[in-house]
């Protein structure tokens, strides 16, 4: 207990303590310990954990905005633009520059309520929302006055943007007309929060041309961020990009995608960005791709297909390299309708027309009489068929208990091998197909790769094509193989199912006297000639086949190629038409086929055409519906390639 005593100087009573109480040392020690703990904590936090705090501060106060790079262009083999980008002009509003205006508007509205003595004054957050809409409406009104328009603010998107993406500019008006863009460019002050913004929109100058091959893009809210872009640890906001969804746009997406750019901003506690950005990098356009397509040939093919008014597919290949010159599928769709987004109505229309499917790579069809080329090869190689083989065609051919009919049930008389190809005589191929046997036929089809996808760059290529044989039938249907099945396969009917692209590869391989062709949609001017195992056909056999196939295009089922519209003087074309039947719930539909190549003496282009009949029971012949499309392609190709030496005139008869 301290003892009160009298101060000698003042004479007042003060409380005094006895100094140097040993117990105080304990207290001092305790205080020193605490201070030491504080100092060491400070040392630890400020010096040893500097990096961690700095990182946390950075993450908390900085934001990264990612801007996707424009996609690369697609060109045809001659460098003509097939797919590009077009600029989309928009007006954006930087909400973060309007903080003061939002506050002033908030105060003004609140004052008005109070002055009006309105008891139903909204809550502060609601007032803030009203103030924001009011300010943005004011800016839009300014634009409306300049443009003479009456656009209105979408309050829902504005609020959503304010809550979720405040750091990004708010898209006030999109897809401006050039005239509107020019007016705003001149009349909006440079320093206005309203800014003209440009972004790229995919542009297809030829609208629906090669629609399935080129493909389309869709909006992508989660664009891939370039790894070299700094700020990966920061909270990132991404501007909307695009991603390939179909065709080459999807297959080549990694190459076409641009390098994303962006900026890192410091933000205040309310999330508003502070200018200027700490770091900034401009996006870079993706790589351009030169496709193997030939614009002129593609146009010629699609124009003629449209004239036919049927669904179908057309494929043309460069025989030497396998580069795809034409890849068309009808019906198709306008690729520009996919940008900026596909509407429900357009989607429904495409669905109703059955235009989504790429019939060239996804459609599986019986090849019909075009398969007789393969039957011929199998027969020649097996030794059952010879160049001078012949059959007496009576119009019907009994197989087992069934009677198979020849074309049009006509009695053709003696049919030689070249004639059988020229007239597409079923009887001839029933006979030699049966002699050759299903095993040889199936093996030959597999040797030409007809039982597997071609491996073209396009996505979703059909994989369920097959060449039937006894083992397959037993496994699939638990049924025995009959001679009738072999007869059907001999003429490309039955369970055979192939894509037009496969048939194009097949005829290109045959043109090179080889067995496999790997198609590609990428153009390389230095691409070497493809090589694959030879057909091993006897020379005389191949010559007979070529003679028969040439006759198809001159006097046979494909003689439409000699009409004025399609005839190319001097160009010798080997071809084969076909008309396949397929039973559907609505009835039997015909599929018109044509496969061929030219010139015969030095094959350079191979073509496969398939046109779907749309009316059950209607005769949709290959010579009438498919050969004209091939003729248009041959003619366009010949126009680009140059003149052909006409065959020497026939010697005068004595």
């Amino acid at each position, binding site marked *: 207990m301290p003892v009160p005593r009298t101060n000698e100087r003042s004479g007042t009573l003060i409380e005094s303590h006895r100094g140097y109480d040993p117990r105080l040392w304990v207290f001092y020690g305790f205080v020193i310990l605490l201070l030491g703990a504080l100092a060491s904590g400070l040392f630890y936090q400020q010096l040893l954990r500097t990096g961690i705090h700095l990182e946390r501060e950075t993450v908390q106060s900085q934001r990264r905005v990612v801007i996707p*790079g*424009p996609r*690369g*262009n697609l060109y045809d083999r001659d460098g003509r633009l097939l797919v590009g*980008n*077009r*600029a989309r002009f928009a007006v954006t509003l930087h909400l973060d520059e309007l903080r003061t*205006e939002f506050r002033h508007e908030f105060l003004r509205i609140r004052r008005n309520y109070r002055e009006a003595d309105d008891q139903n004054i909204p809550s502060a957050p609601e007032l803030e929302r009203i103030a924001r809409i009011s*300010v943005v*409406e*004011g*800016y839009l*009104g*300014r634009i409306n006055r*300049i443009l003479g328009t009456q656009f209105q603010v979408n309050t829902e998107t504005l609020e959503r943007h304010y809550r979720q993406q405040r750091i990004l500019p708010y898209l006030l008006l999109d897809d401006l007309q*050039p*005239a509107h*863009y*020019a*007016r705003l*460019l*001149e*009349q*909006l*002050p*440079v*320093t*206005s*929060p*309203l800014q*003209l913004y*440009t972004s*790229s929109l995919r542009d297809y100058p030829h609208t629906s041309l090669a629609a399935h091959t080129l493909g389309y893009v869709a909006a992508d809210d989660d664009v891939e961020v370039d790894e070299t872009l700094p700020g990966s640890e920061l909270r990132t906001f991404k501007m909307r990009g695009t991603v390939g969804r179909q065709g080459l746009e999807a297959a080549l997406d990694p190459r076409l995608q*641009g390098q994303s*750019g962006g900026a890192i901003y410091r933000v205040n506690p309310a999330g508003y960005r502070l200018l200027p950005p700490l770091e900034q990098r*401009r*996006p*870079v*356009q993706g790589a351009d791709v030169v496709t193997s397509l030939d614009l002129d040939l593609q146009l010629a093919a699609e124009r003629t297909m449209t004239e036919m008014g049927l669904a179908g597919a057309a494929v043309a290949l460069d025989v030497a390299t396998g580069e795809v010159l034409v890849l068309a599928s009808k019906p198709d769709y306008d690729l520009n309708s996919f940008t900026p987004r596909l509407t429900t109505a357009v989607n429904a229309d495409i669905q109703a027309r059955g235009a989504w499917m790429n019939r060239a790579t996804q459609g599986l069809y019986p090849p019909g009489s075009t398969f007789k080329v393969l039957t011929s090869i199998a027969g020649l190689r097996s030794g059952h068929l010879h160049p001078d083989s012949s059959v007496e065609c009576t119009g019907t051919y009994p197989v087992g208990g069934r009677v198979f009919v020849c074309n049009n049930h006509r009695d053709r008389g003696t049919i030689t091998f070249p004639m059988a190809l020229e007239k597409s005589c079923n009887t001839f191929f029933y006979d030699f197909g049966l002699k050759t046997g299903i095993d040889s036929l199936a093996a030959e089809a597999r040797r030409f790769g007809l039982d597997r996808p071609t491996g073209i760059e396009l996505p979703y290529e059909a994989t369920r094509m097959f060449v039937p044989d006894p083992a397959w039938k037993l496994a699939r249907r638990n049924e025995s193989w009959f001679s009738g099945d072999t007869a059907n396969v001999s003429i490309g009917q039955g369970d055979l199912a192939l894509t037009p692209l496969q048939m194009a590869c097949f005829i290109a391989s045959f043109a090179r006297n080889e067995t496999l062709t790997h198609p590609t949609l990428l153009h390389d001017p230095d691409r070497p000639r493809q090589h694959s195992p030879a057909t091993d056909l006897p020379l005389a056999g191949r010559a007979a086949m070529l003679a028969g196939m040439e006759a198809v295009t001159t006097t046979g089922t494909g003689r439409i190629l000699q009409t004025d519209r399609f005839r190319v003087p001097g160009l010798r074309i080997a071809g084969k038409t076909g008309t396949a039947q397929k039973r559907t719930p609505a009835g039997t539909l015909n599929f018109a086929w044509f496969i061929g190549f030219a010139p015969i003496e030095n094959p350079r282009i191979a073509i496969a055409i398939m046109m779907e009949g749309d009316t059950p029971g209607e005769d949709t012949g290959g010579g009438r519906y498919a050969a004209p499309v091939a003729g248009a392609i041959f003619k366009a190709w010949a126009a680009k390639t140059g003149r052909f030496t006409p065959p020497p005139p026939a010697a005068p008869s004595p």
Partner: protein
Amino acid sequence: MPRRFDQARPFFTLGLVLLVWLILPGVLKRFARLSFYELKAPVDLAASYVGDLQDFWSQKTRTNNELIVAARDLAAVNASYEFRMRDDARLRTEISRLEELLRLPSYGEFRSEPARVVRRDFNAWWQRIIVRKGSNHGILVGSPVVYSGGLAGRVVEVHATTSVVELISSPGLRLAAVFDGDDRPVSFQGGVNPPLRPAQGVLEFVPLDLFATSAAPRSLVTSGLGGIFPPGLIVGQVVQLEPSTDGLFKTGRVLIDERLGRITEVTVLVPIDPSVVNAPGEAAP
């Protein structure tokens, strides 16, 4: 009063004035600024007139022979201008006829108001000029201003007897231009130009199929699409174009006529319909 406080009194007064200025309402500040400007304007005008007088007396020192030669040259120039004016009138009539024939909308009509340049405004890094005409002469904010080299700029402030013109070399001026012979609008904006050097501008959103180099420059003219500037006024020469990284457009550099740097006489194109011009800086609702 202690001597030390007396010594500090000017600083104290200055601080007090600054404090009062800071807390003064914005309206009063603006009024004070404008009043000061109008008060000061006669001094600028007087200086400008004195300059003119000085030029006059310097001309008086020339010999009669020199004046005769100058007058002869001037007569020749006038004759050529008269010929051009007749040609222009003929072309204008033809354009009107064609516009009527094609039912094209005619561009806004303008009234010419020649004005002498008082001085360059160093407050704006010499990118603005003050001209000797103002609201007393019917000048409107936003009016285009031309000179012998083409487009000079745009009126941004109008006072009673003077106006402030933002030059096209200023980064604060942007317009929709076109390449001569092309009809696609591109964005022209003044560059960051150091004083006493040839002025340059920046081009953006140039279509990829347009080309220009310093060896083969292309003329850039106003498009008339923006609603402020009439079409066909020369902006400058495009001397460089290069693809932007986004691959959508080209960006470029525009050389502005050197005469803009020593501009002494301009013509303000005052729209007959005042609604066709919009005051810059009016973005806020």
